[in-house]
């Protein structure tokens, strides 16, 4: 069994949530050392050296992102932890937050030290009521110990963490939507440029990182970049959380080396398909990414390999569908989600998400024709690369890939109307 780093709590009998247990387990040693002995630039260099790539979905190199911060602006620098985790099929950050909150806080402290941040926010999905409570308690404990506050670890440095709960919108996970929401506005993603590193929350330089990304920072600094790079492909290595849901025997979150094969994840770790069923399709990275057929799962689950296979690692939320799945109905459900969650700013996304769902409902209910399939494809195409954020792409990519990979099934669905008419 692979060593559990991020999900270390699973190897223990003690609860890591109380800060004393976390400390007894070796926690906060690294943060203390960083604050008292290590220069910020050294931390940035280590993270760069580690090739850590963001776990929020896009896989952007974390160290590089940090270097984009506008310098000497005279404004405070903010660190925002993206804990909005709302992508369908994604539930990995939750595992960290609810079971090992101090791991996240420690990663955030080290990151805050690296980028020169005094106030950091954790923006947590509104439905994570328990997670927010856990984090608040953990933060209160850290203040009591003097790990947060006016004099962090006696280093003379000041650092404050705040928990901010969302109110139930997927778009608050998009980093600039998150920023707007944190500022108290509607989560309408911002046009870029400027990017958050230059003009972020409250108009100040801001870094937004995912929960898992920030948790990784603790371990990179604790064990060294070489250790991190020894796990999985060098271009984007590290321990990785994969969330598996759907028609498998053993759904859940699994910590495995980056680049573990999709087949292994499904067949071994998730226990394979339900009794008497065979695999039909897999969405490898949360509902936003192109679907794969059963014959396409011999791929390494890392950023570059999945991209090469025509999909994306995304949030590594693996949605498994067996042969009982009606692909039209499945896509209809996905389209419903994006229709419901589009913030409504951009014309193609606002109008396109609704249109896609309407066509798919018609298709699913046997009211569509072959013509509508072409329409589905061109509507989706018009939504790609034309909007402020990539929610529009996220709505369009599954549609195009479902149509391409399961064209037979869609044609049959479209034929139902013709069939009904003939009968």
């Amino acid at each position, binding site marked *: 069994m692979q060593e559990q780093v991020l999900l270390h709590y699973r190897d223990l009998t003690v609860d890591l949530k109380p800060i004393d247990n976390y400390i007894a387990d070796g926690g906060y040693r690294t943060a203390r050392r960083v604050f008292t002995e290590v220069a910020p630039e050294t931390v940035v260099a280590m993270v760069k050296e580690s090739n850590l790539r963001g776990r929020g979905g896009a896989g952007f190199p974390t160290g590089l992102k940090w270097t984009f911060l506008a310098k000497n602006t005279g404004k405070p620098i903010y660190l925002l932890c993206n804990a909005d985790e709302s992508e369908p099929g994604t539930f990995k950050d939750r595992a960290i937050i609810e079971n090992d909150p101090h791991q996240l806080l420690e990663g955030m402290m080290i990151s805050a030290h690296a980028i020169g941040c005094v106030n950091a926010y954790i923006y947590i999905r509104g439905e994570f009521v328990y997670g927010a409570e856990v984090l608040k308690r953990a933060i209160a404990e850290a203040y009591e110990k003097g790990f947060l506050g006016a004099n962090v670890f006696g280093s003379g440095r000041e650092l404050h963490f705040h928990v901010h709960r969302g109110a139930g*919108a997927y*778009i608050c996970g998009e980093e600039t939507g998150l920023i707007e929401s944190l500022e108290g506005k*509607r989560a309408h993603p911002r*046009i870029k*440029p400027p990017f958050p590193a230059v003009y972020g929350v409250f108009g100040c330089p801001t870094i937004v990182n995912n929960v898992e990304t920030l948790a990784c920072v603790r371990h990179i600094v604790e064990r060294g970049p070489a250790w991190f790079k020894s796990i999985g492909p060098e271009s984007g290595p590290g321990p990785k959380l994969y969330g598996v849901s759907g028609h498998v025997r053993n759904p859940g979150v699994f910590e495995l080396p980056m680049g573990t094969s999709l087949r292994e994840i499904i067949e071994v770790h998730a226990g394979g398909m339900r009794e008497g069923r065979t695999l039909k399709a897999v969405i490898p990275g949360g509902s936003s990414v192109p679907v794969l057929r059963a014959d396409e799962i011999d791929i390494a689950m890392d950023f570059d390999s999945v991209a090469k296979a025509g999909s994306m690692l995304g949030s590594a939320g693996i949605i498994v569908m067996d042969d009982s799945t009606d692909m039209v109905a499945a896509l209809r459900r996905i389209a419903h989600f994006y*229709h*419901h*969650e*589009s*913030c*409504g*700013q*951009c*014309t*193609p*996304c*606002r*109008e*396109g*998400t*609704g*249109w896609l769902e*309407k066509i798919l409902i018609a298709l699913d209910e046997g009211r569509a024709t072959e013509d509508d399939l072409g*329409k589905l494809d061109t509507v989706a*195409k*018009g939504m790609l*690369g*034309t*909007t*402020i954020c990539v929610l529009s792409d996220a709505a369009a990519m599954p549609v195009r890939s479902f149509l391409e990979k399961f064209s037979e099934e869609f044609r049959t669905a479209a034929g139902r109307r013709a069939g009904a008419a003939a009968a």
Partner: protein
Amino acid sequence: MPTVTVNGVSVDVPEGINVVKAAELAGQEIPHYCYHPALSVAGNCRMCLIDIRAMSAKQPNPLPKLQIGCNTIVADGMVVETDNPRVEEARRGVLEFLLINHPIDCPICDQAGECKLQEYYMDYGRYHSRFALAEKQHKHKVTPVGPDIMLDQERCILCTRCVRFLEEVTGTNELCVKERGDHSELSLARGKSVDNPYATNIVDLCPVGALTSREFRFQARVWYLDSVASVCMGCSTGCNIDVHFRRDNLYRVKPRANAEVNGYWMCDAGRRTWRDNHGDHRLVASYTRRGDEFVQVDASDAVSRSATLLQGCRKVAIVASASVSMEEGYLLACIARILGAGPCIVPSPAVSEIADDGRLISTDRYPNRAGLLALGYREADALPPDVDGVVVVRCDVVGGDEAAWGAALEAMKATVVVDDRIGKAMAYADQVLAIASHFEAFGTVVNRKGRLQAFRGAVPAPGAALAGWQSLAGLLEALGGERYDTADDVFAALCAALNLGSARTHAQLASGGATLGQWAAARASTGFSDAPAASPA
């Protein structure tokens, strides 16, 4: 200056502008909805998508994705295409998306004819509908959002121009967007109504028929309307306007952009100034007093009777409100000189209930005080002593005290009233000359910042009323003064008198007004102090 190439046309453009503007300079149109030069960039309509073939001379690589022109700042060596198949397809897509839930009720929409949705669709659209009518998202149609503004949610394309105007320009924040996705719609902020002094600007800003003026709704098809470039007479700011009219009727006033004066906006009070141009209160003929009665006379008769009356006076005063034009003001100054009257009098600004708001609205509700003062007028609140004859032009009460003013006029041997409407001074008049309003004749005024601007007539003056300059030129001639045959002649003479370089014509004022510098220089060098000096060339 960076050089930018748009569709093969290279132009040098100012630093820091966006590609939409740069394209304009290159003579290329990038269609857009949400972008407005006076508002922040929202980037939401996605209509202005462009293909960047080279970012700059330093980064000559093309960008993989289409970008929005409104949020792309020019760089030297940038190469942009706005008409290649990729852009055209994307634009067709955006237009199609905009229309799928649109009610397409152009036949009953007031915006028809000046609607960007119509225009761009005709220019760039897909031309056949792929969306089932029954599936359209319906929203509220006739929704009043303010005393003069009606909202049709179905027509709204959610460009947020109106929201941004109310947030960024007036700071009043009456409108916002609520809900998400294709359920998004405009909403009034709780307890609010769009009734701020600049509210109707959002009707102009709205690129489609979502926001319409309740006054203008269903009054006219815009393609039947003509328009003249003019200047608002509502206060001393002199916002540039377009006056929309058809035959003899005015329909509306809209702001005309002038960065030096009003930017893109005007106040609602100014917009309403045309409303009382028609009606029973207008003076449609000239009259002479016979005992207790007024007898109608023709204009030339009225002029010669006035001249005779005034010539019979010992001392005449000329009183003109600050809404008389430069032409009228100049002719009055010439008349004063011939009659040996002192400097013309302009009533001091009344203490107005309207305060300067730091934007456009001025506390001085008259358009030409600065001009009249430059012509040597004196501000006063009463008639000078010893006067036994008075000419009252576009002016009702001096000094705010009606009784005192009435008593003063009562005591006159001769009172000549020149006006475009029936007013209080008429009760004391011996002669009444009917003249045109500023919606009916040419003229110039000088705003509070010393800017000389031209207003233009849109509709004919009612009845027998003549242009103000024409009546006064007649009076001047009847008194033995110079003769002027056209408004341009008067203007040229006043320009010469004020030393505004060589003689000018109205046409030379173009649409933006004359520069402040020329005017200031003119003011410094003229001898206009106590009496109009130079005699017209």
